[in-house]
């Protein structure tokens, strides 16, 4: 696979001769950004609606039912319009520049990370050979936004939230990265599309999860660490609303506040995609296999089925996160830290050791 971009390739095909190449590159970039932003916004709106529905049904309620008619499908849209229309407020004494910059940095970081995410086997924004590495690096950047927001807000509660986020992310990046080493050892690539393609055997069920006994514990560790990484309950300490009012976003309102929301849900989705690709076979499932066999791997039908499979798996991960959020109480900051350093990190290292030994004994398992 080359490092090329599908939009650039398409544009090069349809563009009339004589158009300078930088125009093509620039337009491909703009088209890619537009599609990415639009896609993420729609995904987040869906995820917010889903969260409200899931929480509602868990709590013997219906959740939104009115906006848009059918089960309140337009609730997120209505909320978004309301947030856009709200007053742009920067509190007195806040560091205005940092205050405005913080949500922008978080958004840029999460969109940057999502660029490395393939949508279908041939549809991607950036086909990076270090895809996973880029995702982890870019999504960690959101921490800077949180700390910036907490510091700039000129509020003690926000500062507490920011400090907690910094401590928590440092503690959980380590087990997150180490637990991902286990599937990487099995699969041998950091490229998300390539990783998915390598799990295509056994009628599309040659998932990493079934190839090495140490992948299952690693996947649980990864899921736990990704909850902490995305600030989701029971690790939602940076915003823990009963303790810190709203943590780092206490002073934010309107559209800036909604950027934090967007980032949270986008990060959830991204982590679920990473989990789906590196543990649960990515695009691969029996349906994908059948579509590939009957229509060929260049067909639109195959791309749709493969993309849909990944989306379903990722949404399942998002649903799991929601389920956990509405079931468990929140842990305390010292418990969060000791869990990260004392339990998750050593366990992840053990998994790496075990998986390495397994791979050395049964080297033929990987394609």
């Amino acid at each position, binding site marked *: 696979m080359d490092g090329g971009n599908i939009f650039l390739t398409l544009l090069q095909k349809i563009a009339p001769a004589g158009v300078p190449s930088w125009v093509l590159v620039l337009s491909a970039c703009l088209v890619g950004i537009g599609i990415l932003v639009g896609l993420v916004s729609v995904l987040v709106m869906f995820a917010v609606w889903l969260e409200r529905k899931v*929480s509602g049904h*868990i*709590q*013997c*309620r219906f959740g939104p039912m009115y906006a848009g008619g059918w089960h309140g499908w337009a609730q997120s849209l209505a909320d978004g319009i309301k947030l856009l229309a709200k007053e742009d407020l920067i509190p007195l004494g806040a560091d205005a520049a940092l205050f405005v910059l913080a949500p922008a940095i978080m958004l840029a970081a999460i969109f940057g990370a999502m660029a490395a995410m393939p949508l279908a086997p041939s549809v991607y924004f950036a086909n990076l050979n270090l895809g996973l590495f880029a995702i982890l690096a870019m999504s960690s950047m959101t921490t800077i936004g949180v700390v910036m927001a907490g510091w700039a807000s000129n509020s*003690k*509660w926000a500062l*507490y939230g920011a*400090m907690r986020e910094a401590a928590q992310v440092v503690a959980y990046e380590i087990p997150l990265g180490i637990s991902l080493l286990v599937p990487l050892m099995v699969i041998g690539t950091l490229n998300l599309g390539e990783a998915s393609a390598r799990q295509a055997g056994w009628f599309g069920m040659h998932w990493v999860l079934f190839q090495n006994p140490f992948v299952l514990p690693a996947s649980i560790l990864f899921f736990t660490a990704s909850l902490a990484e995305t600030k989701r*309950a*029971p690790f*939602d*300490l940076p915003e*823990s*609303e*009963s*303790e*810190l*009012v709203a943590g780092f976003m206490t002073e934010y309102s309107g559209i800036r506040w909604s950027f934090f929301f967007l980032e949270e849900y986008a990060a959830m989705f991204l982590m679920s995609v990473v989990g789906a690709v590196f543990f649960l076979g990515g695009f691969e499932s029996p349906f994908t296999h059948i579509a590939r066999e009957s229509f060929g791997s260049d067909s639109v039908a195959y791309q749709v089925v493969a993309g849909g499979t990944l989306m379903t798996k990722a949404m399942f991960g998002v649903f799991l996160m929601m389920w956990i959020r*509405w*079931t*468990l*109480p*929140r*842990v*305390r*900051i*010292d*418990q969060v830290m000791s869990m990260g350093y004392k339990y998750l990190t050593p366990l992840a290292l053990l998994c790496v050791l075990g998986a390495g030994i397994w791979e050395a004994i049964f080297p033929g398992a990987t394609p």
Partner: protein
Amino acid sequence: MAAEPQGSMTLEEQARVLPSGEREFFLDVHTTDLEVNFGPQHPATHGVMRILMRADGEVITGAQPHLGYLHRCAEKIGENVEWLQYLPYTDRYDYLAAMNNNLGYSMAVEALMPGLELPRRAHMIRTICAELNRIGSHLIAFGTYGLDIGAFTPFFYAFREREWMMALFEKICGARLTYSYIRIGGVFNDAPPGWLEEVGRFCDVFEEKWKEYVDLLVMNQIFVKRTADVGVIPKEMALDFGLTGPMLRGSGVDFDLRRDMPYSLYGEMLKDNAFDVIVGKGEKGTLGDCWDRTYCRVYEMMESIKIVRWCLERIEPGPVLGDIPKVLRIPPGEAYVGIENPRGELGHYVASDGGKVATRVRVRGPSFTNVSVLEDLLPGALIADAIAIIGSTDVVIGETDR
């Protein structure tokens, strides 16, 4: 960087002793404690309490509760309105247990009327209502405590049952929160047809649902980790501060006014062994921690169900209001009656000079006394523990401020 003692202090003098006993040295770093204004507008203060906290990072080094944001001069109003007119004001101090407040005030006034004989059915309905209200109040305490700890769902489960309880009260008196139903001389009116049967059904359903609460929250491992060994009130401390109710029983002191100074029908119930007093045992951690207090509240709900069932088995038709004149003139004298509110001892002291208006109404609210322990309990705890401790006192600000 060289470790230079700051000012005239030696290195040893600068060391700060941490709660764990370790010493911390600040060589070239100047840190000051952060003063945090917790409340009055904070999601975990259960109203408008304000606590001024000093915090060293996440560790609280000092706390000072400030009350009075909801002060409505209830006691002074009691000296200016007629005996019966004061009843709706009692609803408003502990608004989660209005039936119990009505009962406390009515019993205090009735203590000044020696000739008054209450019908047995009035006692029965009073007890049923007071115990149902205790369940409702404990449901709020349990649900909001879950919210404080970060578990959202138990709150809605608790409200599902509380909703039915409030519907029952709506049927009997028309109000959902401030009932003014139990009044001097009995209760306002008889229960509507089918009401007592519905209370029976509520008891059956509640018993099933109650098991869910215990599984979902009280025995939840994260919940136990968050509340066990946190905010420990030893026995002596609980007695020194004059704590009552689940706060006292959570510390292992076996004291309940319903059993130890029985009023209304509770003496009769004791002969039948109709209910037990739940006392904390330090099951999950130290005796007197937040978990023990929650345990007391949650298990007390089941005892209340037993009491309601006892009444339902024995209730007979009859009048519900004693012989009360249209214009009440209470014989001169003074009386203090304390009853077991969901939060502890709710005492009413009333004094009369024989007129239509009390000369003094004084309320001993359990929340006010229980909240006094915070100042000693919070230092040394983490910010997250502070939320757990404040939640476990189950304070209703309407009552601390009155």
